[in-house]
C-alpha cells in the first residue's frame, strides 16, 4: 500500500483545506478511501454518531498536482483509512502559504498520514513542517461497509435556500428546541419548524424550486410525480446535526439540495465542480 500526493497550487490547497474543515465539523472520525481517481470521506450511520452518515467525493486531479497510489492489490486498488479530519484540518490550516504540500502514507510509530509542507522563508533554506496524523488501516474485509449510499426513495426533493440564511434561522431555533421539523413540497416550498410546549416557530421559504431528477435517479421521481404538489413531506431531526452541517459550510456549493423521505430521513446534497458532499440525518419520532 502506497500513497503520495503533492499540492503546489495555493488555490487548490486552500480549497482542499476548506473541504476537510467542513468534514471535520461534521464528524470526529471518518473513513478516507483513496482510489486512483478519487478521495472519499465516508461516515456510515452508526448509532454512536447519531445515525448520521456522510459521503464526500473529491476528484484527485482537481486538487493534486501529483498523485500516486498503490492499493491493497491490483484487484482492490484502494486504500481505506480511518482518520480524524480535525487533525488534517489543523495541519492544513497552518500551511496555507506553503510552497508545496505533500500528503503521504507513512509508517512511523504507527501508520500515519503525513502532511509535509515547505514554507517560504527569508533565508535560503525553506522551513519544513511535518504533521504525522495517526490513522487506522481498515482491513479489506470491512470495506463493504463504506460503499456509496444510494439516493433514497425520497418523497420530495427541493433546492435549499442560501445556506447562510438557513444557518441563521437554525441557530436561533437551536436556542428554543432540540428538534426541528423540516418539511417541503413539490411546489418549491420549505418550512423549518420547531414546536415546544411554550412556543411554535416556523420559517417559510418559497420558490426554491425542485430539482429535476432523471427517471433513473430514483424511483422517487415516479412516486413524486403522482404526488400532490402542495402536500408536505416532513422529517423531525436533531437540530444539532443540521446545525453542524450548516456551521461547517466553508465550500460555496454551486448547488445545494435536500431530499426528504417522509418521517424517515433528510438527505442533504452539496454539489461543487470538483466535489460533492452528501449528508444523511435520520428522522426521530
Amino acid at each position: 500500500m502506497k500513497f503520495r500526493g503533492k499540492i503546489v497550487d495555493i488555490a487548490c490547497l486552500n480549497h482542499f483545506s476548506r473541504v476537510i474543515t467542513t468534514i471535520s465539523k461534521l464528524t470526529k472520525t471518518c473513513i478516507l478511501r483513496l482510489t486512483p481517481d478519487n478521495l472519499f470521506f465516508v461516515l456510515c450511520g452508526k448509532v454512536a454518531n447519531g445515525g448520521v452518515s456522510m459521503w464526500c467525493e473529491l476528484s484527485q486531479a482537481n486538487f493534486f498536482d501529483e498523485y500516486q497510489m498503490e492499493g491493497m492489490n491490483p484487484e482492490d486498488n484502494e486504500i481505506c483509512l480511518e482518520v480524524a479530519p480535525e487533525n488534517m484540518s489543523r495541519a492544513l490550516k497552518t500551511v496555507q502559504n506553503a510552497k508545496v504540500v505533500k500528503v503521504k502514507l507513512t509508517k512511523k510509530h504507527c501508520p500515519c498520514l503525513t502532511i509535509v509542507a515547505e514554507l517560504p522563508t527569508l533565508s535560503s533554506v525553506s522551513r519544513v513542517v511535518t504533521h504525522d496524523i495517526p490513522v487506522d488501516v481498515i482491513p479489506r474485509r470491512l470495506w463493504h461497509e463504506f460503499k456509496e449510499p444510494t439516493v433514497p426513495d425520497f418523497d420530495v426533493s427541493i433546492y435549499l435556500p442560501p445556506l447562510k440564511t438557513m444557518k441563521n434561522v437554525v441557530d436561533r431555533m437551536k436556542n428554543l428546541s432540540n428538534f426541528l421539523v423540516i418539511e417541503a413540497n413539490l411546489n418549491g416550498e420549505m418550512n423549518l419548524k420547531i414546536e415546544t410546549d411554550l412556543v411554535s416557530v416556523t420559517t417559510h421559504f418559497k420558490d426554491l424550486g425542485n430539482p429535476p431528477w432523471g427517471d433513473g435517479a430514483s424511483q422517487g421521481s415516479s412516486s413524486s410525480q403522482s404526488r400532490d404538489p402542495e402536500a408536505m413531506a416532513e422529517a423531525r431531526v436533531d437540530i444539532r446535526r443540521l446545525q453542524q452541517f450548516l456551521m461547517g459550510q466553508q465550500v460555496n456549493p454551486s448547488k445545494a439540495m435536500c431530499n426528504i423521505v417522509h418521517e424517515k430521513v433528510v438527505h442533504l446534497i452539496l454539489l461543487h465542480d470538483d466535489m460533492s458532499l452528501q449528508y444523511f440525518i435520520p428522522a426521530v419520532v
Partner: protein
Amino acid sequence: MDCVVTGGNVKVLAKAVHSLSRIGDDLYVEPQKDGLALRSVNSSRSAYACFLFAPLFFSRYTIPSSYAFRCKMAIKSVQAVFRSLVSLEKTVEKCRIELDDQKNRLTFTLHCKHGLLKTHNLSFQDSESLQAVFDKDSCGNVFRAQPRLLVDTVVHFPPSLEEVTVSVSDDRMWVRNHVEDEAEQSKAMLTELCLAADEFDHFAVQAQNRITFCLKELRSLLVFAESTGLPISMYFDEPGSPVVLSVTDSVLEGNFVLATLSDDPNHCKDNNRRTCTQPPPPPDDFMNDDMDSYLIAMDTSIAPVPSTTGPSTSPLVASTCSKQPAAVSHRSRKRNEEEKGKEGDRTADLNRPPDKKFCSLFFGSVLPPSPQMSTQPITHQNVLASDSEDDTCME
C-alpha cells in the same frame, strides 16, 4: 517610590503585566536601584518571569532610599489598570505609579486625553524578594531570533498543547510536540518543525541536546516580544536544567526561566550530583518523567525587613513559599530536615529568623529516596499539575 511612564512605554509596561499574568497569580513589585522589577512565578514554581525596567525607561524614577520596599499583589488587579490595550494606546498619555505610605496602597494613575484621570489604589502585601537562580551566560546553547520566527513556529501547535520539545544540531533546530506516554502517541498527531540556523540572528550550539518545556510561558513572552518587536534569546544546556528566554533592549530586560523535563534518567542523575548532594532518585518510572523534574531552582532570599512585621519574619521555611500548596511546603521542610543531616551548618540558619539568604530550594530534586515517600509524589503531582487549570480561568 514614584515612577512616571509616558507615551509608548505605557503600552510596553501594560504588555509586560499581561505577559506576567499568564505565568502566575501574583505580581511581585520591587523598585531597585537599577530599575523597577516586576516578577511572577507559577504555583508549581516551574516557571518564573521577570521584567526589569531601567530608570531610563521612566520619565521619573525615584525609589525609597531609606529602606528596601517590595511587595506582591494580585496580578488581576494590576491587569485591570491596563485592561484595554487599545484604548490605552489611544488615550493614555502618562502613567504614574506611586507608593502611598500612609494608606499602604500602591497608586496607579492614568493620565488620559482631555484631562481625564483614572486612579487605581491597589492594596499589596509585603513579600520576600522573588528571585530564580539561573545563569544564562553559562549556557552552551544560545539562540536569538526575531519574534516573528517563533510566532510562526508556535502557530503550528494547537492551543491545547502543553509542552514542546526543542532539539538542536549544529545548523538546525527542531521543534515538536511532546506526547506524554506511548498510549497517547498512537492517537496524537505529531508535529515537527525544522528551522535552519540562518533563520536565526544568532545560533550557537555547544551540546546537541533536546529539551522539553511548557509552551504556555513561551507564548506569553511572545505576546510581549511581538508587540515590542524585540528579538528573543534562548539559552539552555541539558534536559532538566532550566531554559531561559529573554528579551533585552537598552531600557528593559525580560527573563523567563522555565523548567525543562529531564527525560533521560542519566541526565537527571548528573544534574543532581552537580546542583546538590541529593542521591539520584530511585529508578521509578514516574520519578524520572514526572512533574517534579519540571521544577526550577528558586532562590527565595529574604533580606532584613525593618519595621514591617508579617509572615516574612516567621522562622519557618514555609513563609517563603506561603502561596504554595501545603503539600509542597511540607515537602520543602522535609527536604530541609534532610539537609540538616547532611549539611550541619544549615541547621543553624533554619532555627534562626531568616535574616539572610538561607536556602536555595532546589525543588527539582527534592524527592527523597525513602520508600514510604514513593506513594506521596503522586499527590504532589496533582497539586503541581493543577496549576494549568488555575491559569485557564485567568485567560
